[in-house]
């Protein structure tokens, strides 16, 4: 019998040593890559006036629809070509990073505050409060995001602030769900009981004792949501309901580029790549963060 057990044990899928180490480094490397991408994004957003060769708003009709530098008829003055109004694509993409970052981070912070706040109440107080909040969360999640976002933008008007508010209003439920579950688990831990028996004020228990223990999860979620917000903002812009031109939002550029897909594919390809790479980098970082903080996932 024991030989049988041994045979089974040895046949179990155990990763070859090398592969295991490789995977660890691979994960770390991915996280580092993600971090670098975000760093590049940040630097671009901050220093774009210095990096951009042209004013992103400067139009020059005679210069319109020039191809990127490596193609025939391209020149070094416009590395990635120009758009239908003669504006330099490269500069516009650089400035677009500002929009994306501002929108992404602001929306993420806003939805975190809303979502975590509600989640704390739902998780800590339970009972009726929880029922109401949970019901509301379910409603929000049942609402197709796109429609809600479009309607909100239509009501509020497509300005930068309103986009941020819209994004926050449509995505906060995720934070609430996670926070609520974790808070409920924490509430039963004895150090929370101790805080109650020591007669600490409720706000102190929530903010000083419960919240710090939630931070790893919130941080991971927040990172992913930044990426999502960036994509969703560009989505709204693409549908014409987001940032309005001439402000260089990557999504709006993509929408404009769609009209010229046939011949001037670069007008759509490059802004899209920018969105993709940014989101990818942020997601990589988020994944790495999650791997670091979640003991369960670390095993798989």
């Amino acid at each position, binding site marked *: 019998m024991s030989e*049988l*057990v041994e045979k*089974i044990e040895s*046949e*179990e*899928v155990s*990763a*070859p040593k090398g*592969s*295991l180490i490789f*995977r660890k480094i*691979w994960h770390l490397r*991915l996280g580092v890559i993600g971090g670098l991408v975000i760093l590049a994004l940040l630097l671009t957003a901050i220093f774009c006036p210095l990096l951009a060769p042209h004013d992103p708003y400067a139009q020059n009709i005679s210069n319109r629809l020039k191809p990127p530098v490596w193609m025939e008829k391209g020149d070094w003055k416009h590395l990635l070509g120009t758009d239908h109004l003669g504006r330099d694509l490269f500069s516009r993409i650089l400035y677009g990073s500002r929009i994306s970052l501002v929108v992404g981070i602001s929306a993420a912070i806003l939805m975190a505050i809303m979502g975590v706040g509600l989640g704390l109440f739902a998780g800590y107080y339970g009972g009726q409060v929880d029922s109401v909040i949970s*019901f*509301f969360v*379910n*409603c929000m*999640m*049942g*609402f*197709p*995001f*796109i*429609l*809600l976002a*479009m*309607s*909100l933008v*239509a*009501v509020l008007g497509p300005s930068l602030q309103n986009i941020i508010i819209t994004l926050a209003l449509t995505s906060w439920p995720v934070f609430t769900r996670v926070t609520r579950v974790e808070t409920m688990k924490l509430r039963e831990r004895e150090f929370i009981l101790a805080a109650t028996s020591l007669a600490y004020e409720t706000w102190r228990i929530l903010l000083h004792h419960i919240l710090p223990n939630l931070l790893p999860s919130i941080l991971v979620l927040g990172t992913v949501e930044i*990426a999502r917000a960036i*994509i969703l903002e*560009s*989505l709204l812009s*693409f*549908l*014409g*309901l987001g940032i309005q031109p001439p402000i260089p939002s990557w*999504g709006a550029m*993509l929408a404009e*580029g*769609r009209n010229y*897909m*046939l011949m001037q*594919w670069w007008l*759509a*390809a490059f802004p*899209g*790549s920018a*969105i*993709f*790479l940014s*989101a*990818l980098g*942020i*997601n*990589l970082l988020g*994944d790495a963060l999650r791997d670091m903080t979640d003991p369960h996932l670390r095993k*798989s």
Partner: protein
Amino acid sequence: MRTYIIKRLLQSIGVCLVISMISFFLLFLNTDPALVLLPPEAEVTDIAQFKKQMGLDRPVTIQYLDFLHRVVLYGDFGNSFVAKVSALQLVGERLPATVKLAVAALILVNLVAIPVGIIAAIRRYSLMDNLATLAALLGQAMPLYWFGIMLIIIFGIWLRWLPISGSDSLAHLILPAITLASWILPVNMRLVRSGMLDVLNQDYIRTARAKGLNERKVLIKHAFKNAAIPLVTVVGMQLGLLLGGAVVTETVFAWPGLGRLAVDSIRMGDYPVVQAIVVVFAFFVVIGNLLADVLAALIDPRIRLE
């Protein structure tokens, strides 16, 4: 079990109600049908009279209740301001196209996700696993419409293999379906993979192997059945994602479905149609969630006990 279903059913109805409320009030704030329907030269008195006629001067709650009454009993959302036909009818005309797209995408997704997820779980750390993880990662970061546009550029314009707009033939379905599928593929792949991983590590799998069962049987009969549970629940929730993705996909590919109708209607302030779409969408999403939950409870008795 019965109490669980009843509870979920009541919840679903409540959710639908709240959604209809939110959409109603949003649109109410947003558009003024008088401005849309009447010519620009209309006098103030004309506008007032028009409003009275249409019942638009009543308090909001009354209007909402009337709306609810009409919708639930007659399915009457009013007529589209643009097309002058019943809003619901318009929705009904466009619905099949979207359903076709969604179903195609769903089939595609699972056709790929399930085998890939299973293989990735079985042969951990292999090339397949790493590729799958990479693909999932990329997929999550990919803006849907960009993917669609790139597909159009590559397959439609450069290679000229597939048509890029309209919906006449099966060939027209391919690119949009792939695009929509990419929206959901990463999540599904990950789910299948982690579900299988969890299950494979359980003791009862070892027992099955120890009994000398054929490996294939072990996998399919025991492992996958249990791993399928989280997948089933997610599929229900994905209905919402699919519908959302459909909006974008249809816009990119000029596919004549509900999504495009939604975008156009919002832009033009055609609010009966928008309301109809929202309610229909929400209905499907809620039903999808409910079915998924009930199915999960059926398969996994543990859920029933909660």
